[in-house]
C-alpha cells in the first residue's frame, strides 16, 4: 500500500491534475447526463403517449369512415327497397346483387317481417333451421327502436346455409309498400367482421401492446385475446374504459403498469382502447440511461488518457529539473542538458542553470583565492624571519663592532629586535598603522646603517591621531621600501631619499612610499603592474604579494598604485580601508 502510494505520489502535479480534472469531468458529465436523461426520458414518455393517441385516433378514423360507409350502404339499400314496387321485383334484386358485388364485405341483405318470417334475401340462400332470429339482438333492437339504425356486436351469422361467418349486423325497421297500407318490416344488412378485425389486429402498440374495442356496456367487440378471456385464462379490466370516454390513464396492477388510452366512436358508443405497457416506455428510458452510462465511461476513459498525457507533459520537465537540482545538491556542478517543456519550465531551467554556472564559477574563484591567500601568507611568514636580511644585518653589526662603532651597533640591534617584534606581533596578521610605520622605520634605520648613510628617509603622518590607530595588514610597506632601496637608491650616484607618507583621503587610508631612485621604464612598470616582474634579490615578498593580500583581505577596490618616471623616482601608493582598531587592541 505504501509503495503504491509512493508510486502514485498523492501530492504530485500529475496526480492532482488528473484527479481534479477527472472529478470535474465526472461531475459535469453526471450533471449533463442527468439533465439529458431527464429530458430524454420525459420526451420519450410524452412521445409514447402522443404516439398511442395518434394511433388510436387513426383507428378511430378508419373505423368511423368504415362504419359510415356501411351506414350509407344501408341507407342505399333502404332507399332501393322503398322505391321498388315489391320485394320480389327483379329490378330490386338485380340492384341489390350489384351492391353486394361491389362490396365484398357485405355478407347478406335480408328483410324479415316483425314476427321473424323471411321475406326476401340477397344473395338467395336457404334459411337454416333453429336460427332463433327473433331472439337475436339485431332483431330485437330493430323492433324496440324502429327509427334508429342499430349495429350489433360481432357474432356468428347462423341464418343461411353455407359457412358460418362473423358479422356485424346492421338493422332497422323499414316500411314496405303493401297492397293497402305500408307494412313494417326489419331490414338486416350483415357486414363481414373480418375488415374490422384485421384493422384492429394490424395495430400494434409497442411489442406487447394492443387495441381492443368494447361497446357501451362493456361487451367485447374486438379483443386480440378474446378467446383467452372467455376461457378464463386472461382477464381484461374494463372498469377504466367504462368510466371514461376519452383520455389516457395509467393502470397499475401488482405485476405491471399499463397505459390505457381511450377513444369513443360517437356514432355507436363503441370505445377503442389502446393498451401499452409502461415497461416498454421504461425500456426506452433504460436504453437512454444505458447509453448515457456508456458515454460517461467512454468520456472518462478518454479524459483520463488525455489528462495522463497532459499532466505528464507538464510534470515531467519539473521532475527532470528536480533531479538535476538533486544532483547539484549532492555536489555535482557539472553542466547538464537544458530541459525542454513549457515556456515557464524552460525559463526556470535556464535560470537554474545560469545560477549553477555562477555558483560553480564563484566556487572556483574562492578556491583560487584561498590558495593565493595561503601562498602569500606563507611568503609573509618567510619575510618575517628573512634569513638573508638577518645575515646581512648581522654582518653589518660585526663590521661595526670591528670598527668600534658601538653606538651604531646598539642602534642596529635595537632596531632589529623591534623589527622582529612587530614582524612576529604574536602571530597577528592585522596590526595598526602605527606599528606598521614603526616597523618600516626600524627597517629603514637598519638599512641606512648598512648602506652607510647613503640615503635619507622621513616618515610623515597627516592627521596622526586618526591614521595611526587605523588597522592595516602587517608587512605592507617593508617590501615596497625594500624595492625602493634595492632597485632605486642602491645604484644611485647622488644621495637618495625615501619619504613615507600616511594620510586619510576620501575615507580611505593612504600609505605612500616615494623615492628619488632610478625609476622604471614604462615597459618594466607595465610588467610590474601586471605582476610578471620578479626581482631576484630582496625578501622575496614582492609587490604582487602585497597587492594580493590587500585585495584578498579588503576587496578589489583597495590595493597598490604605482607611478614611476626614469631618473626621477617612483611613487607607490597603498590604499587600505579605514578601520579603526578597538581600544582593547591598542592597549
Amino acid at each position, binding site marked *: 500500500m505504501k509503495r503504491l502510494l509512493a508510486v502514485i505520489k498523492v501530492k504530485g502535479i500529475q496526480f492532482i491534475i488528473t484527479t481534479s480534472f477527472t472529478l470535474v469531468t465526472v461531475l459535469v458529465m453526471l450533471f449533463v447526463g442527468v439533465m439529458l436523461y431527464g429530458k430524454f426520458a420525459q420526451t420519450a414518455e410524452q412521445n409514447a403517449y402522443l404516439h398511442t393517441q395518434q394511433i388510436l385516433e387513426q383507428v378511430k378514423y378508419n373505423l368511423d369512415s368504415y362504419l359510415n360507409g356501411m351506414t350509407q350502404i344501408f341507407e342505399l339499400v333502404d332507399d332501393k327497397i322503398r322505391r321498388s314496387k315489391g320485394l320480389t321485383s327483379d329490378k330490386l334484386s338485380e340492384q341489390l346483387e350489384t351492391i353486394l358485388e361491389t362490396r365484398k364485405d357485405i355478407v347478406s341483405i335480408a328483410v324479415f317481417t316483425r314476427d321473424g318470417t323471411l321475406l326476401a334475401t340477397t344473395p338467395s340462400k336457404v334459411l337454416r333451421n333453429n*336460427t332463433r332470429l327473433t331472439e337475436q339482438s339485431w332483431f330485437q333492437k330493430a323492433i324496440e327502436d324502429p327509427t334508429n339504425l342499430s349495429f350489433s356486436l360481432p357474432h*356468428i351469422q347462423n341464418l343461411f346455409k353455407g359457412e358460418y361467418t362473423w358479422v356485424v349486423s346492421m338493422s332497422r325497421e323499414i316500411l314496405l309498400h303493401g297492397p293497402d297500407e305500408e307494412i313494417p318490416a326489419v331490414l338486416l344488412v350483415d357486414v363481414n367482421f373480418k375488415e374490422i378485425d384485421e384493422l384492429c389486429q394490424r395495430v400494434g402498440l409497442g411489442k*406487447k401492446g394492443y387495441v381492443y374495442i368494447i361497446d357501451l356496456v362493456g*361487451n367485447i367487440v374486438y379483443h386480440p385475446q378474446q*378467446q383467452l378471456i372467455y376461457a378464463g385464462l386472461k382477464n381484461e379490466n374494463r372498469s377504466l374504459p367504462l368510466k371514461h370516454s376519452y383520455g389516457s390513464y395509467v393502470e397499475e396492477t401488482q405485476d405491471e403498469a399499463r397505459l390505457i388510452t381511450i377513444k369513443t366512436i360517437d356514432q355507436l358508443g363503441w370505445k377503442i382502447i389502446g393498451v401499452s405497457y409502461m415497461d416498454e416506455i421504461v425500456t426506452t428510458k433504460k436504453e437512454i440511461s444505458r*447509453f448515457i452510462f*456508456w458515454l460517461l465511461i*467512454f468520456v472518462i476513459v478518454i479524459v483520463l488518457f488525455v489528462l495522463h*498525457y497532459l499532466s505528464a507533459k507538464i510534470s515531467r520537465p519539473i521532475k527532470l529539473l528536480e533531479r538535476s537540482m538533486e544532483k547539484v545538491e549532492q555536489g555535482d556542478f557539472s553542466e547538464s542538458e537544458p530541459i525542454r517543456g513549457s515556456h515557464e519550465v524552460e525559463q526556470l531551467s535556464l535560470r537554474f542553470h545560469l545560477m549553477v554556472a555562477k555558483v560553480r564559477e564563484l566556487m572556483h574563484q574562492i578556491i583560487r583565492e584561498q590558495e593565493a591567500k595561503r601562498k602569500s601568507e606563507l611568503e609573509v611568514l618567510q619575510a618575517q624571519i628573512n634569513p638573508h636580511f638577518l645575515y646581512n644585518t648581522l654582518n653589518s653589526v660585526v663590521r661595526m663592532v670591528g670598527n668600534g662603532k658601538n653606538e651604531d651597533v646598539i642602534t642596529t640591534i635595537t632596531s632589529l629586535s623591534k623589527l622582529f617584534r612587530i614582524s612576529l606581533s604574536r602571530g597577528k596578521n592585522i596590526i595598526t598603522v602605527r606599528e606598521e610605520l614603526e616597523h618600516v622605520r626600524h627597517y629603514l634605520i637598519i638599512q641606512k646603517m648598512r648602506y652607510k648613510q647613503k640615503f635619507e628617509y622621513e616618515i610623515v603622518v597627516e592627521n596622526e591621531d586618526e591614521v595611526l590607530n587605523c588597522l592595516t595588514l602587517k608587512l605592507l610597506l617593508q617590501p615596497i621600501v625594500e624595492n625602493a632601496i634595492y632597485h632605486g637608491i642602491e645604484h644611485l650616484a647622488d644621495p637618495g631619499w625615501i619619504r613615507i607618507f600616511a594620510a586619510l583621503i576620501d575615507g580611505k587610508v593612504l600609505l605612500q612610499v616615494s623615492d628619488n631612485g632610478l625609476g622604471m621604464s614604462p615597459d618594466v612598470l607595465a610588467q610590474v603592474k601586471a605582476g610578471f616582474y620578479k626581482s631576484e634579490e630582496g625578501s622575496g615578498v614582492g609587490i604582487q604579494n602585497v597587492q594580493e593580500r590587500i585585495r584578498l583581505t579588503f576587496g578589489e577596490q583597495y590595493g597598490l598604485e604605482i607611478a614611476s618616471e626614469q631618473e626621477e623616482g617612483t611613487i607607490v601608493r597603498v590604499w587600505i580601508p579605514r578601520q579603526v582598531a578597538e581600544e582593547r587592541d591598542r592597549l
Partner: protein
Amino acid sequence: MTAAGKRFSVYGLVALVAVTLFYSCSASLTNVEVDKKKTVALIVRMKHGDYWRTVKLGAEMAAKEYERNLNFYAPDYEEDAQRQMELVHQAIADGSETIVVAPSDEQVLREAIKLTRERAIPILVLDTDGKDSAVKSYIGTDNYDMGKKAFEKMVYLIGKKGQIALLGTNRVKENAKRREQGVLDLLPREMQVELVANENVPSDKKQIGEWTRELIRKHPQLKGVIALDATTAIGVAEEMENSGLRDNVKIVAIDSPLEVLEYLQEGIISATIIQKPLSMGYLGVKYAVEASDGEAVPSLVDTGTKVIDRENMFWSENQKLLFPFVK
C-alpha cells in the same frame, strides 16, 4: 519521427480504437435485443384443420405476450409419424430453447425426449397422456372426463332409459380409448341404459353409413349413439338424416368441425363435447417459456372441455370457442 510524435500517434490510436469500440458496442446493443428473443418450437400432428390451426393461434398469442419467436412445425397428414420425426430433428437443429410437441405416436415422443434430454432442452407434450418424468408438462384434454361427459349428456338426452351405441374410428388410439373408458366406467350406474354396441368403425364415410344402417337394423329400439370422434359423428349424422331417423336417435359427438356444428344447429346431432385447442396452444407455449426460465410448471394441465348443444351454441362466449377464426 520524434519520440513526442510517436507518443502522440500512440495516444491517437488508443482514442481511435476507443471510439470504434464505443460505437460498435452501442450498435451491437440494439442488435442483441432482437437476437436474444428465444425460440419456442411447436410441433403438432397436422398442418391443416381448424383444430391444429386453433392450437397454433393460441400458441401465437402466448408467444407475443412472452416475447418469444414461435416456430411451427407440422406434417401435411395427421398419421405421418415419419415426417413428424424429421420435424422434431429439424426443430432441435433450429436451436429452439423449448420444444412443445403433440406426438403422432409413442416413437416420436420417445425420440423427442431422447433428443431434448441430450441438449437439456425442456420438453412439453400436448394432447397426449403420459407420465414420463422427462416431460415438464402434459397439457391437453382429460379424455376420460370427456367420455364421462358424453355419457352423462346422452343419459340426459334419452331420459335415462334405453339402448345406446358407442362408435368410433381409430379406437386403438390412446385418446379414443380413454374416452371409451369414461363411458364404460359410468355405464353400470345407469341400470336402465343398455349399451348394445361398442364398435370400432372404419374412418370412411360411406362405410360408417353402412355400419350405422346395420346397427339400426339390428337394434330398432336404439335411442342414442355416442361417437368418440368427429369423423364418426358426421358419418352417423349423415346416415340418420338420410334415413329419416333424425328425431328417434340422439347423437352425442366429440369436437366441433363445421359439419358437426351444422348438424348441431339442424338438430341431428344433439350435443358435442368440445376441447379447447386454443387454451392448449396458449398454455403449451406459456409453460414452455416458464420452464425454460427455470420456473416450476404443473406436470399435468387439463385444458377443459365443454358440452355444447343447440341451446348454447350461439351464446357469445361459445361462439368464440366454436368459431375461432374470423373469415
